[in-house]
Each structure stands twice: as C-alpha cells, then as structure tokens.
C-alpha cells in the first residue's frame, strides 16, 4: 500500500492512544479457551494423556517442587507487594479489558493457591491474603488465563522487583501438563518435532525439494547459483532457522536473504534435516526436560555434520533459548570454533559482513518501502546480540538502515525494551485464539498507525517467525495488507548485489532498446 493511501485512511481521531487504559470488564475473556491436547500429544512429552484422578494432590506437589527447583518462581510468589505498576503494561489487558489479564492478577491466579498450601498466612488466615483452595474451577481458570500470556516479559521490566509473569506462566503450564491438561498447539508441535526435527513435520525429502525450488528461484532472480545446502558434512556453519522460513511468507524471503549474505561472504554453510527447527516450544510449556531434548538435537546435528559454528535465523523465542539457554541445555560446545559466539545470530553475522565491507548494497532497491522496526519481545527482553548491551535493538536497526533509505522508529515507549508483543507469542499462535490475537495486537498496531500517519510508514520489519505470521494475519484487521510485514533479511536480500549478478539497471536500457526496435 502506498504511503499516501494509508495517511488518508488514518486520521488523527481514528488512532487510539497505544496506552489507553481500558475500563475493567470482568470475565471478558473467561470463555476464550485454547484447544486441549489429545493423549497422543501429551504422552510423547512425558505427561499423562488426560486429566488424572488425583490431579489436585499432584498439582499441589508439583507447585512445591517448582518452588524448590526454581528461585525465580519462589521469590516472585513471595515478593509482590501489589503496587500495581504492571497493571497497565500487558498488551492482552490493554486489548481485552479483562482484569485477569493484568500481569499481577494473572500471577495471583497461582499465587493465591500457593499461599493456601505453602505459606503461614494462607494456611491460617486465607481470607486475609486472598488464598484459595485448588478446585476444578481454579484449574480451568489457570488453563484459560495462562494461555492468554505470551511470556513477553514487558511486565517484568515495569516491576520494581523484576517479577516476571512469564516464569509464573511457564510454571503454571508445566503444572497443567503434569496433571494431563496440555495445550494442543504446543504439545502437538513438540511431538512433531521429536518425530521429524521440525515443528511443521517436514520430512528430509520434502525439505530438500523445497530448498531446491528456492535455489532455482534465486538463480532466476540473480543469474547466480546461490545454494541452500542441506546436510552437508564439513560445512563451516550450521544454520538453525525456524521451519516457517521454509514455507511461509514473508519468512522465506528472509531465508533467501541469509543465503545471499552467506554466499557473498563466501562461507560454507548448511541446514540440518535432523535439527531443522530453531523454535523450542519446550520453553512455552515451561518444561526444562522437553526444552533440553529439543536443544539436544542441535548439538547432535552440529557434531554429526562437523561444523565449526552455529548461526540462528530470525526467530524470537528461538533466539532467547539459543542465546540464553543453549549453552546450559546442550553445552558445553567445546567442539566448535571458540573465536565466534556460540551460537551467533544471523543479524550479528550480517552486521559484521556490512562492517567488513563484504556486502555490495544498493539501498535504492528498497525505496518503495518506508520502514519501521518491531522489536520482537523475546529478542528484546530475553536475549542480546553483539558485544554491547542493547545490541539486540541496535544491530537490526543498523542492518535495516544499511539496506533501506527510509526508516522511522515507532514511539519510544513501544520499542526496544518496552516493545509490545505481536500478540501471538508464547504458544498462542493458533487459530482457536484468533480473537485474543487480534485484540492483543492492538497496542502494537496503534503505534504503527501513528508512524504511518506521522511519517508515511508503509511496512514493518521483524526478526521473529511468530511475529511475522501473526502480523500477516492480523494487520489486515488494522488497515494494512498482509505483506506489509517483512523479514529484515528480506530487505537485505532486496538490496544486496552479488558478484556477477545481472541487475535490473543493467537490463533496463537493453530491454527498452529492444522494445524500440
């Protein structure tokens, strides 16, 4: 969509304030439930197939076990003073008005039960501290509202004690899984990954065919044989990227971008069919064991292929697991080249390539786009990049501005560490939660509409597979086109000119000349 159309469409009075605090509507989202997992999706993860008879006893015991095993969980349940600083920070609260979507209220769903069974005040004076028994209604309420949290950590930034609702949410989901109340979307995907190596269930043959098709596309476009290698032993770099990069838009265009950058940098690289997934849904369900098992595949693939480095593609939660947890879960990576970060983000790779002057770039090839950048929540608040604090904000912007002429940031309170979640993170990117996803995207969409109005921004770039899928679905609800969300490396791909590549500028005069004849 051209900038002018958009500015005309969005007048000042039609844009809401991104931070407008809604009137509380109790129970507004009480009936929004994500589909429950079938036994065949719970059992492969080590959980009971369906709700067990002694669920109450097991859930309470599990809660105690988690408090013993996880300092964050224990301290966060104790330390909250109910100051209310987080109450207006959650995009799901801002979008749905349901008070149980306020971070502290969401925590309290579990804290109230923890107090009842594990604290002095809750045991003897439950009415005083809001402690309550674990009943079936409470369990169902957990299922409902802990699946309306995308674990984006925006509330944690606001909290004077750093209390992270994501930790409580993950613990709650693990308790639910332990009693047999898993969520279909997450558990089905983890089951698929354990079978095929990726969330989509793509087998190696299908993956190879897809990559070959993409190689043809690239050759058609550039006239150069840019490779997308699969299972190449002895390659230098193992690329771990979300499987959405193999089939979804605009993800694929990002993958083509990585391929061009690797090609231009002259490095040998490969994708692994065994570890053909960056995303680790084990994190969403708070299961250390499942997260470890999924991560373990990356280690095995790296060893088997004999690579020297691991590079992650554009994927938000994957990068949190990659950056913050991979060394813990599947390390030590002493068999890799220690001169490079383990793992490294594609943005770090591209940024270095730009600094080293390896990439030939024609920024004008992105002139049709007026860009802004959406910081993906888990990259922003759960990981880092580069050597400096805040590199996860600066590197993507630097790369974007190296390949685009037109770039404008959204309002400061909605970007960098204050960024809003896209509305689909943390295991909620499923059609049965579409209503929640549309409402949860509202704060981000409002900030976007503002820069569209102020600066004529036409497109938004992101570096997370979930963000990209979510936005391509929900942006049309807010007056944008589904392809107004782009991969950062899609813009890189547009602007990079490979050695020997035929460019349109070269073609154009010839073509014009031919036509005249």
């Amino acid at each position: 969509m051209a900038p002018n159309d958009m500015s005309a469409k969005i007048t000042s009075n039609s844009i809401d304030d991104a931070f407008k605090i809604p009137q509380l509507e109790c129970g507004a989202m009480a009936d929004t439930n994500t589909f429950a997992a079938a036994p065949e999706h719970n059992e492969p993860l080590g959980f009971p197939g369906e709700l067990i008879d002694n669920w109450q006893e097991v859930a309470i015991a599990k809660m105690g076990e988690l408090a013993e095993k996880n300092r964050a969980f224990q301290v966060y349940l104790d330390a909250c003073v109910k100051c209310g600083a987080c109450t207006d920070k959650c995009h799901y609260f801002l979008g749905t008005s349901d008070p149980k979507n306020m971070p502290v209220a969401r925590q309290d769903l579990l804290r109230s039960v923890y107090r009842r069974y594990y604290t002095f005040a809750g045991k003897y004076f439950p009415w005083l501290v809001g402690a309550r028994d674990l009943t079936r209604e409470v369990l169902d309420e957990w299922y409902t509202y802990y699946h309306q949290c995308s674990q984006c950590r925006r509330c944690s930034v606001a909290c004077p004690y750093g209390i992270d609702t994501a930790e409580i949410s993950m613990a709650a989901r693990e308790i639910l899984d332990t009693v047999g109340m898993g969520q279909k979307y997450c558990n089905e995907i983890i089951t698929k990954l354990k079978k095929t190596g990726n969330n989509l269930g793509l087998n190696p043959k299908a993956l190879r065919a897809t990559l070959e098709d993409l190689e043809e596309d690239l050759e058609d476009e550039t006239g150069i044989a840019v490779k997308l290698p699969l299972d190449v032993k002895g390659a230098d770099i193992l690329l771990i990227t979300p499987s959405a990069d193999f089939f979804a838009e605009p993800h694929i265009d990002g993958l083509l971008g990585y391929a061009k950058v690797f090609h231009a940098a002259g490095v040998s690289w490969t994708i692994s069919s065994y570890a053909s997934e960056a995303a680790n849904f084990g994190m969403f369900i708070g299961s250390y064991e499942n997260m470890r098992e999924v991560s373990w595949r990356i280690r095995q693939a790296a060893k088997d292929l004999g690579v020297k480095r691991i590079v992650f593609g554009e994927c938000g939660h994957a990068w949190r697991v990659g950056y913050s947890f991979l060394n813990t879960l599947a390390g030590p990576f002493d068999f890799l080249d220690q001169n490079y970060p383990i793992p490294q983000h594609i943005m770090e790779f591209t940024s270095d390539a730009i600094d080293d002057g390896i990439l030939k770039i024609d920024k004008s090839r992105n002139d049709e786009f007026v860009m802004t950048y959406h910081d993906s929540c888990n990259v922003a608040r759960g990981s880092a990049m580069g050597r400096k604090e805040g590199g996860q904000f600066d590197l993507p912007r630097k790369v974007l501005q190296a390949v685009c002429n037109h770039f404008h940031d959204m309002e400061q309170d909605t970007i960098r560490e204050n960024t809003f979640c896209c509305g689909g993170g943390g295991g909620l990117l499923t059609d049965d939660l579409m209503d929640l996803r549309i409402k949860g995207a509202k704060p981000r969409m409002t900030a976007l509409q503002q820069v569209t109005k102020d600066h004529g921004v036409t497109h938004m770039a992101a570096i997370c597979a979930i963000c990209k899928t979510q936005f391509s679905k929900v942006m049309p609800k807010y007056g944008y086109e589904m392809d107004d969300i782009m991969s950062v490396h899609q813009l890189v791909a547009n602007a990079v000119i490979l050695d020997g590549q035929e460019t349109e500028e070269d073609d154009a005069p010839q073509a014009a000349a031919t036509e005249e004849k």
Partner: protein
Amino acid sequence: MLSTLYAVLFYVATVVMIVGTGMKVFKYARTPAPLKIPVSPAPRTKRGVWFRMFKEVAFFQSLFKSNKWIWIFAVLFHAGMLLVLLRHFRYFTQPVWWWVELIQPIGVYASFAMLIGVGGLLIRRIVVPRIRYISDPSDYLMLILFLGITITGMGMKFVMPVDILAVKQFFLGLMRFQIHQLPADPAILIHLGLVAFLMIIFPISKLMHAPGVFFAPSRTQVDNAREFRHLSAWANQLPPLPEGIPEEGEG
C-alpha cells in the same frame, strides 16, 4: 507488669524477625536458578549488576519508568521511613552517635514525607480500580499499620510529648537484658505495639519484598550465557541424553 509484657514482646519480635527473615533468605539463596533469565538489556559483568541493583534499590529505577505516581509515593514513604529509622538510633545509643545528631532535624520532617507516601499509596489502592481489583485485605491492613505507626509517632513528637527519656531508658535496658519502667502513655504503647507486630509478621508477609529484590534472577543475573555455562545442581543430575543421530532421522 506492662513493662515486662513489652519487654517480652520486643524480645520475641526481634527473634522472630531476625530468625524468620534469615531462614527465608537462606532458602532463597539455596534455591537454584536453572536458567539464565536476566531481563535484557542486562549488564554483561558482575559490576554492572551491582550498579543495576543499586539504581533499583536506591532510586526505584524501574518503578520510575513504569509509574510516576506510585514512584513518588513509594519514594516519599521509603526515604522518609529510612530517615525516621535512622533518627530512632538516638533511643538506642548513649551517647548519641554524631551522625544521628546530624540528621536529627531532617529526620523529624521526614515523618511528613512518610505520611504523605503511605497516605498516597492507600488512596491509590482505594480509588484506582485496577489497583483495588488486585488488593486483598492484607494489602490495606499493611498500609494502615504503617499509617498507625507514623501517626502515633508524629503525635508524640508534635502534639503530646511522652517521657521520651524514660522510653530511652527502657530500650537501653532491654539491650542489657534489664527491664526498666516504660511510661504507661497510650500513644507510646500503641506505637510500640504496632512496631512489634510489624516485626513479627515481617517474614511471613509481603514485606519480604525487601530481601526478595536481591534474589530476583531477572535483575541479579549477569548476561553472559554464551560465555559461561550456567548449570544448576539438579539439572546436572538429569540422566544423559543419547549421543548421535538415530538412523531414521537421516531419511
């Protein structure tokens, strides 16, 4: 009789607060953090974390960014209380330490800051629907408790002075395990009773946020997961996963 009762009360309160809080803190410290979860952007060095925590504890940095009203009231309350507490050292030292003398004039007025702070927080809790929604009876009572302590304290300073020298004798005596006469003035009895109650509930209430803030992994961890492998003891005990790639995986 009354003096003995208050003497016992303060001994019990002191033991409960120190031992109870100590046990909780020990438990926090002993509980492992299985993963690196600093909320980023986070410091890459230990020194950086100290600086981050100093800004949090001394200036309530995150609260300042997230809610100015709560921040103003919280700062007035906490800073006011800190000065008032420091001023109270004059009742436990003989001769009074020089720096306690020095802050004496500020300490007196700090009680007004404390009053405005507690009052502001209580009013917000009642009038802001979001905060009212998340409040339990204990949340109101805690503020009322502080309000009671502040008002009785200020009453004795500004309205109806008590025989403060006798009160000081009582506490100096307690510190030497001697029981001196405590003036039977309602203001001091209520004031001290509420303080003792506060000390007793400290380890079992949300007042644990004070030590808790130093144990929140989201703020206290160093962001260096790629450089140093972080592994908790229980995670290290998990059964090893199989090495190598199973045949069918290769297709």
